[in-house]
């Protein structure tokens, strides 16, 4: 599977490393070279990582084309900004017709507003709060 990940933070870098290790063709995009260096230093995206790095804005359609969005089977938006994740995901889904698009949103209200758009949303706020709640009451 060809996977394009926008946002090289803790989640993006971990996902890129795991999917690359499983044999998927991974490209990861971030605005800052620093992020790639950071997670390379931490060993997440070490020498074993076989994927590609692309530096640039994941909301820029031209940049996404250069990163291979047109041939991607899956697109994942995990930058720190909900609006950036929404915009990148909508471009991938509506403009480039990527078959599977997953978007992280911290704000549950935004998830509610956008949920019927064919994009798969993941809200760590709701999932995290429920998980912690469960741990506390166990």
């Amino acid at each position, binding site marked *: 599977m060809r996977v394009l990940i926008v946002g090289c933070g803790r989640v993006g870098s971990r996902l890129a490393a795991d999917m690359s290790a499983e044999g998927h063709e991974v490209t990861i995009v971030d605005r800052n070279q620093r992020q790639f260096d950071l997670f390379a230093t931490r060993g997440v995206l070490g020498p074993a990582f076989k994927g590609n790095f692309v530096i640039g804005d994941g909301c820029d*359609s031209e940049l996404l084309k250069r990163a291979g969005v047109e041939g991607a089977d899956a697109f994942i938006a995990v930058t720190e900004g909900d*609006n950036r994740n929404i*915009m990148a995901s909508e471009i991938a889904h509506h403009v480039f017709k990527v078959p599977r698009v997953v978007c992280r949103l911290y704000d549950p209200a935004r998830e509610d*507003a956008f949920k019927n758009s064919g994009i798969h949303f993941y809200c760590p706020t709701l999932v995290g709060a429920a998980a912690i709640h469960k741990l506390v009451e166990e």
Partner: protein
Amino acid sequence: MYLIVIGGGTVGYYLSRDLIERGEEVTLVEKDGARAEWLESQLGSIVMRGDGDELSFLATTGIERADAVLAVTGDDEDNLVSCQLAKRKFHVPKTVARVNNPANVRIFKTLGVDVALSATEVLLDLIESELANKEPARRSAAQP
């Protein structure tokens, strides 16, 4: 008409000022407190401090009765989300977005924004027609 302007930068300020002068009812949304105070000192009590991309805040602006939302911050993604929330959650008849990356004019239209305007594209069109010695006729608004 009741118009909500999101983003109190240079564009949002002059836009709101001129709309008020034309007799329109305007609410200007600005997230920065100090900037919002300055805007209020210039334009009066039409300024609301808050995030134009937060549903709960937008609900306090009287957006349900707005004729149009004009999102003119410097960030394309914020303008897109403000317009989409206005459309999807509050059924605002007309949404207008300022676009910084000219490629987004077409993309915003695809994503449901009624009008997307790029200053860069307007200037390019103007220069092009000046150089070609023509009337600057072409407008770069993406109309549905």
